[in-house]
């Protein structure tokens, strides 16, 4: 029954991608001068596994290409070739090629044949230039004997005494022979030593076997291939006549001195003196988005313990419940307090499972910066700190692109060319720092460079050009730098291949905001720039303000709330009898009547009887008119879309302590809807009451 290799392919591709990451980081290490044996072996093994697996699991394109890589690496590890930076560059390119091949396999896409051929040619050129290196060592083909119909073989088999030490079994070999055909086996016991000299581990027997079969000589040799060096083996063809008289020839043949059959040239391996460095580079993993997560076993253990405690507390409480009387009240309160602690700890434990170190996101940068350095002709050193700072897996996957853009920006526009830096008295090699740390309930990620800093004047001019600000406007520095994040803004003189290509700082800001975070920039002209990204640690939990409209409870994310206040009658202004504006200190903000937006029966429709929650969403301010403010609490975000669909103005739902569902307000959405009007015609649906 054929076993389907498909099931192993996924694992193979995953582990190969990891292997490629290891190869890449090891190669980058080689380039900077450290060339110890352990690293080289690591790189070799990675390529070797990829090649072997590729062939086994049906990815021939991968295995064919990787073969050249493996050959080259083999030469290097056997010290038949020295590593040069050209070789490292070629190997890095091959890593990219193999990555592409694997990705193409994963997503069922076409491969770029030309590119692969081009790179392969480079390998071939390199390998051919060194004549002492063997290409693929193919096992010597042992030609089959003459084509005439062979119907029998005479096999003279004399094991060396130590043949059995390798666990080989003569019985096994004879069994295989009998599968080829009928055998007459004659044993020669002449060489068995006297009992007192007998070493039971030695093989002192030899055999003459007549095999009646039309098989080839190669097939017979196959049977003995594992012990070919541990025995004397002569295989001679017999014609029909000869086989019949073989027994008569037995004595004659037995006395013949066996010749060792040469299978092939023996290569003596050079004793290699390896410097075994204790400094093994820890393998770095760089997973792109995947639906599985690797979890530290300690976290799982903590979780299991927590659940255990919870079970204990729960059973204690239920016991109390069985036999409830007023004396037990204190104990019940204690029990409930314990329950609360257990639950909170459990929640934290579970959330921690989704947390992984930001190093996963930082890992792509050494290679990226290495490549950009050669592309831009710049010298940059990457400094990373706080890479073990943990954040939620989903947040991390989404922060990758913004980080890349900011790093590219620093590399392209921030850090100057070596000559320029030298003239300014700066070291030729610039520094790009990535730093991450926890602060409050957030993670802060800083990208700093010691480059030219932001040019205030240039930004101002560009903003005026693009009509973002007025010529006459006086803006504080911080506001000017914020202009950088406006759509369509780019001060790059020419749109380089790397930044400014349609992906602007505005997209970076939007992506970060989508994660519930903020991005800020600080700079000193001539000295450098720092971008700071602040993100919440998890997406699934929200700090919310409970509000009441009529009988319904809603949640407004605390992060969107600027302030809440009692409505002053005098501050209400009406526009054209329809829209309401509220005067808040020195600005007018639109009032959104939530009961209207959500179609609820409120306590009161007149504004002065309710409260105003001033919120901000997507740059717009508004005041939400509600009946009452309730508690503030952390809520778990539940999806509406899982079983229903996305609703405008809502970002999800949550379950309150009493089990009721409360909807979470999407502030930006509500503001948008009130400005442009909802898509659905609410009134008509109410009138008809009949479905489509």
């Amino acid at each position, binding site marked *: 029954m054929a076993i389907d290799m498909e099931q192993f392919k996924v694992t193979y591709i995953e582990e190969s991608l990891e292997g490629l990451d290891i190869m890449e980081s090891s190669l980058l290490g080689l380039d900077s001068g450290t060339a110890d044996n352990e690293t080289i072996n690591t790189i070799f093994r990675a390529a070797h596994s990829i090649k072997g697996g590729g062939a086994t699991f049906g990815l021939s394109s991968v295995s064919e290409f990787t073969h050249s890589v493996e050959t080259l690496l083999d030469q290097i590890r056997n010290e038949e070739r020295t590593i040069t930076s050209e070789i490292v560059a070629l190997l890095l390119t091959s890593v990219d090629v193999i990555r592409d091949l694997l990705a193409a396999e994963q997503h069922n896409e076409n491969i770029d044949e030309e590119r692969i051929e081009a790179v392969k040619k480079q390998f071939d050129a390199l390998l051919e230039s060194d004549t002492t290196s063997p290409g693929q060592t193919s096992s010597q083909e042992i030609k089959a004997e003459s084509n005439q119909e062979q119907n029998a073989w005479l096999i003279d088999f004399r094991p060396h005494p130590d043949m059995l030490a390798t666990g080989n079994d003569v019985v096994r070999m004879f069994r295989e022979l009998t599968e080829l055909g009928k055998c007459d086996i004659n044993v020669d016991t002449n060489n068995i030593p006297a009992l007192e000299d007998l070493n039971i581990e030695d093989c002192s027997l030899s055999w003459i076997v007549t095999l009646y079969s039309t098989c080839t000589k190669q097939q017979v040799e196959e049977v003995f291939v594992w012990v070919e060096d541990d025995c004397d083996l002569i295989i001679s063809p017999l014609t029909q006549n000869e086989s019949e008289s073989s027994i008569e020839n037995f004595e004659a043949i037995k006395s013949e001195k066996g010749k060792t059959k040469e299978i092939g040239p023996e290569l003596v391996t050079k004793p290699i003196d390896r410097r075994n460095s204790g400094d093994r580079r820890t393998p770095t993993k760089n997973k792109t988005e995947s639906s599985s997560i690797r979890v530290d076993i300690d976290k799982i253990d903590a979780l299991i313990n927590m659940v255990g405690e919870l079970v204990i507390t729960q059973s204690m409480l239920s016991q109390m419940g069985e036999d409830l009387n007023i004396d037990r009240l204190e104990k019940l309160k204690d029990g409930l307090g314990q329950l609360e602690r257990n639950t909170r700890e459990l929640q934290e434990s579970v959330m921690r499972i989704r947390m992984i170190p930001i190093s996963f996101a930082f890992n792509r940068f050494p290679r990226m910066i290495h490549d950009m350095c050669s592309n831009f002709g710049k010298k940059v050193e990457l400094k990373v700190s706080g890479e073990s700072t943990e954040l939620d897996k989903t947040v991390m996957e989404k922060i990758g692109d913004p980080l890349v853009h900011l790093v590219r920006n620093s590399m392209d526009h921030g850090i100057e060319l070596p000559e320029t830096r030298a003239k300014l008295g700066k070291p030729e090699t610039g520094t790009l720092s990535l730093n991450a740390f926890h602060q409050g309930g957030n993670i802060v990620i800083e990208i700093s460079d010691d480059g030219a800093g932001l040019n205030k004047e240039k930004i101002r001019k560009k903003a005026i050009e693009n009509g973002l600000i007025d010529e006459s406007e006086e803006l504080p520095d911080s506001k000017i730098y914020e202009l950088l994040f406006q759509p369509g803004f780019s001060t790059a003189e020419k749109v380089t291949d790397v930044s400014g290509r349609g992906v602007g700082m505005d997209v970076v800001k939007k992506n970060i905001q989508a994660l519930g975070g903020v991005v800020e920039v600080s700079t000193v002209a001539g000295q450098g720039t720092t971008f700071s990204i602040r993100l919440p640690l998890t997406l699934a939990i929200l700090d919310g303000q409970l509000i009441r409209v009529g009988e319904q409870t809603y949640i407004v994310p605390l992060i969107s709330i600027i302030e809440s206040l009692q409505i002053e009658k005098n501050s209400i202004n009406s526009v054209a009898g329809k829209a309401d504006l509220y005067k808040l200190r020195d600005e007018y903000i639109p009032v959104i009547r939530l009961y209207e937006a*959500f179609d609820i029966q409120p306590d009161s429709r007149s504004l002065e009887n309710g409260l105003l929650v001033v919120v901000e969403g997507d740059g717009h301010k508004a005041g939400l008119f509600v009946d009452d403010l309730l508690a503030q609490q952390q809520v778990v975000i539940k999806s509406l879309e*899982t079983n229903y*669909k*996305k609703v405008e103005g809502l970002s999800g739902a949550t379950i309150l302590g009493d089990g009721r569902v409360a909807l979470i307000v999407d502030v930006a959405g509500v503001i948008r809807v009130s400005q442009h009007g*909802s898509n659905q015609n609410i009134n008509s649906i109410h009138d008809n009451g009949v*479905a489509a």
Partner: protein
Amino acid sequence: MEAAQQIDVNSQVNAGVEDQGDQLLTFILAGEEYGVDILRVQEIKGWDTVTPIPNTPEHIRGVINLRGTIVPIIDLRMRFGLETIEYGATTVVIVLKVISNNKSRIMGIVVDGVSDVYNISKDAMKPPPDFGSVISIDFVSGLATVGETMVIVLDIDHLLNSEDMAVVESVGGEGA
């Protein structure tokens, strides 16, 4: 699912797993008996308060918390444009698994009361006649006869997935 076995068509089978026929859960709605494939029924609950969702058709009453999952509840009387009644002691919510675009969702329907579970052999199912505009023929898989009663067998995947439910896949899959 076991492989189909040859079963005497005329006999009522009572084994739980065979695909020669279906098991239906039937319920009452405005005096009529309707049926749904029992394999799609997740559970049956009493009616409890629902959180209304703004800007939705009237028959979508809102959502409930079903052991931590948000589940929309649809009033079938409203869905079919029948006269609505007050929910009472026998009012029941049948929680169903609905499949669309290879995605499965959980939804609940409010009905007057649950009736029974019947085995219907494939033979006993007849194709639906044209009901006119009252109920679209898409929602009905067929008519089954159980004893003296006619059971209208509903195709819940069509019923609960049509236009106005607008089951739209969100871009980027947002929403934890």
